[in-house]
């Protein structure tokens, strides 16, 4: 008979196993998933050896198709086949229809909650993204042979709060535990930076299918700091294709409106032309005409470059502004990282080269570099690399503020402020006896409310009646490490507290997510009760693991009585988490939290002191 194993006191009884974590690049045109295996980050392919998943979901009669299988339906069945859902996520209906007037979808729902009418019912853009995430998550679980601890999902640095929140909602809907939302350019810098331990300013130029981002980062001893970000969330390689389509239409003497299928064919021709002109000087085009004839023509590289020059120049202007925001000059930039398939276009590379006066980095496949960086970060966040010295400091991309009298925006947190951050501002009443206040949260750089993005509105009631200007309403904005905002308001002069947490209007409400989870096919068999129990058990395991580790490392910060007290309640938690009540587990977790709150605080302060003293020794 084998001997029973007993763990060392204070050590976890769980063997120190490698946690499965993935990085997902949820792109406008294509998505990818990657992981770190034996220290090496690589993308994960499906059973047909394809690693790129087209970001397309098609809602057919009895099934939902994702990726390549869905892509073919984008021509034959465009109304039920959603491409580039990333352009729709977290946006209002009015916003979508102004920006993309010729989308083939049947929109429905109200302005704040746009949905698309499909054969399988109404679909929200969040659900489309969730399908893609779920598909990639399942691909990873199959390839890695186990349950995922969590995922890092990348978003454009320029995404506003509603778009980030919606992306996180999509992940929740897909059943993924989000370790962190990571800015795409930061992910790319991680992919390059870890291998070559550099110091200095780095520019990440990311031109994808539908978005353009420029980020200026500072890299120093394993710390990536985003100094500034800029860009355009509606500019990308797809626009190159579009100007080519317009050019072909003009050359071939066609006139709009054209049928959806002809438009799609022209678009395909345009994409081929763009790709061909990356390596050759001239490309031949054949276009079918309505009368059955064909039009043949050719486009030279010079013509193509002239067409896209204004678009490329626009990206360079954004680069100039980002450098200025970061308070550095082009000469300070040590490396330029190129990300996104559209950076294969030679004009983009030469323009970037002449702007930054150096050859940009292109050694990692520009389509995969973001997913690879996300996977490296996921590996660290999952706890697989406790000794890692990497730290990502992100900033908020757009200023956050409140509406004040006269339709003006009062900025509370300026763009490019490092997160997490909390800022409070005080406001007062306008009229005598005023007992309520409308709070309107906005995001953007402009001074007028109408020019900024409306994120949320809520009302603060029960303000005690006072003379105008006597009340002190303290509004606090908190942005977490994922860049997600929570706003609370409180009347403080009388000590009466009234506060409220808001979510952006364009995200989904929590109960909507719960409803969707219950309704979704993937979770139909899974009882919600069981899911909640599981969540609490996972949290209980985390609590036991981290408190045990804390006790074994830092019990000297506690008295013997305190240690005994904590150990007792931990044992209780271990016992309760074996049982079948989510509420009971939650209650004991809360008990542990109360017992260990002061200890946790002391430990963190001690670790700050330790970090600093280690530092001083280094300095000597």
């Amino acid at each position, binding site marked *: 008979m084998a001997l029973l194993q007993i763990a060392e006191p204070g050590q976890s009884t769980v063997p120190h196993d490698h*946690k499965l974590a993935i990085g997902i690049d949820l792109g406008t045109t294509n998505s990818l998933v990657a992981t770190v295996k034996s220290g090496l980050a690589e993308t994960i392919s499906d059973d047909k050896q394809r690693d790129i998943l087209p970001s397309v979901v098609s809602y057919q009669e009895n099934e939902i198709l994702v990726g390549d299988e869905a892509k073919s339906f984008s021509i034959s069945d465009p109304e039920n086949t959603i491409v580039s859902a990333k352009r729709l996520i977290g946006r209002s209906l009015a916003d979508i229809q102004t920006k993309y007037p010729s989308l083939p979808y049947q929109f429905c729902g109200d302005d704040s909650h746009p949905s698309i009418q499909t054969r399988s019912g109404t679909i929200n853009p969040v659900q489309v993204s969730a399908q893609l995430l779920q598909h990639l998550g399942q691909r990873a679980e199959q390839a890695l042979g186990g349950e995922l*601890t*969590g995922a890092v999902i990348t978003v454009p640095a320029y995404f506003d709060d509603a778009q980030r929140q919606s992306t996180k909602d999509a992940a929740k809907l897909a059943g993924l535990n989000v*370790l*962190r939302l990571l800015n795409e350019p930061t992910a790319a810098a991680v992919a390059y930076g870890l291998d070559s331990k550099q110091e200095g300013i780095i520019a990440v130029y990311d031109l994808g299918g539908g978005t353009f981002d420029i980020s200026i980062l500072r890299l*120093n*001893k*394993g*710390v990536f*700091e985003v100094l500034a970000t800029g860009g355009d969330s509606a500019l990308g390689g797809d626009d190159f294709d579009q100007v080519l389509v317009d050019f072909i239409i003009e050359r071939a003497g066609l006139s709009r409106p054209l049928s959806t299928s002809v438009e799609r064919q022209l678009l395909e021709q345009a994409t081929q032309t763009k790709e061909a002109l990356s390596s050759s000087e001239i490309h031949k085009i054949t276009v079918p005409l309505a009368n059955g004839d064909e039009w043949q023509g050719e486009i030279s590289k010079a013509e193509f470059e002239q067409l896209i020059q204004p678009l490329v120049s626009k990206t360079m*202007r954004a680069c100039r*502004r980002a450098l*200025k925001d970061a308070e550095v000059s082009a000469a300070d930039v040590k490396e330029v990282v190129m990300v996104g398939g559209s950076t294969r276009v030679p004009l983009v590379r030469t323009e970037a080269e002449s702007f930054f006066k150096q050859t940009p980095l292109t050694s990692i496949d520009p389509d995969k570099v973001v997913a690879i960086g996300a996977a490296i970060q996921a590996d*660290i*966040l*999952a*706890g697989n690399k406790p000794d890692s*010295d990497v*730290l*990502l*400091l992100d900033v908020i991309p757009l200023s956050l503020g409140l509406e004040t009298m006269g339709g003006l925006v009062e900025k509370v947190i300026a763009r490019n*402020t*490092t*997160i*997490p*951050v*909390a800022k409070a501002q005080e406001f007062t009443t306008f009229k005598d006896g005023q007992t309520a206040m409308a709070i309107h949260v906005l995001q953007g750089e402009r001074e007028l409310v109408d020019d900024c993005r409306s994120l949320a509105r809520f009302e603060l009631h029960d303000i005690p009646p006072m003379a105008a200007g006597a009340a002190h309403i303290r509004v606090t904005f*908190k942005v*977490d*490490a994922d860049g997600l905002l929570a706003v609370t308001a409180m009347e403080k002069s009388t000590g009466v507290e009234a506060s409220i947490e808001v979510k952006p209007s364009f995200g989904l409400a929590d109960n909507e997510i719960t409803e969707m989870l219950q309704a979704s096919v993937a979770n139909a068999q899974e009882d919600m009760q069981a899911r909640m129990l599981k969540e609490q058990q996972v*949290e209980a395991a*985390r*609590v036991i693991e*981290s*408190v045990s580790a804390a006790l074994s490392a830092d019990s000297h910060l506690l008295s013997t009585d305190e240690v005994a007290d904590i150990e007792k309640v931990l044992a209780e938690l271990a016992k309760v988490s074996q049982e079948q009540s989510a509420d009971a587990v939650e209650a004991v*977790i809360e008990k542990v*939290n109360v017992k*260990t*709150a002061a200890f*946790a*605080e002391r430990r*963190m*302060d001690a*670790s*700050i002191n*330790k*970090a*600093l003293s*280690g*530092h*001083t020794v280094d300095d000597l």
Partner: protein
Amino acid sequence: MVNVNYFEIFGLEEKFSLELNTLTERYQTIQKSVHPDRFAHASNQEKLLAAKKSTLINDAYQTLKNPLSRAEYMLELRHVSLPNEQASFSDNAFLMRQMELREMLAEVKFADNVESAVFEASQVLEVEFEQHFKAMQVALIDNTEASNKQASELLRKLKFYQKLHVELDRLEDLLFDD
């Protein structure tokens, strides 16, 4: 760590002139131990605590990094109240100068050579900012009741220059961007 002194957080002396590199290095060292990313797989309690600490450290760093907010913070520590923005200004000469400078900015876009006009305007602003800034620095070091009051007046003036600078930046964006 409710009412902690920001200088103490970074183990720095409470002085106006500080070594930015040292501040930044210590900031990063501390963030490495408290940033929420360190606790992504930890319990919810630790996540919340990390977010709180990390937020405080960010605030402390941003406050000390920028010379004007650092000055404001030091005056706050010395219990010197800053005149609020709407309060009237008694220094008429300064107000006149501000109006002249505003006119100068308004004229920039009509100049024959816009680029050099922007450059000249920024030089003028910078020289005057520096003068006031140096005076504030001296007043802060003196640290007497009278000098602190003077520093607070100078800080208020410097904020005017900062606003003009922001406006010039915006003007530059408008003129050269789209």
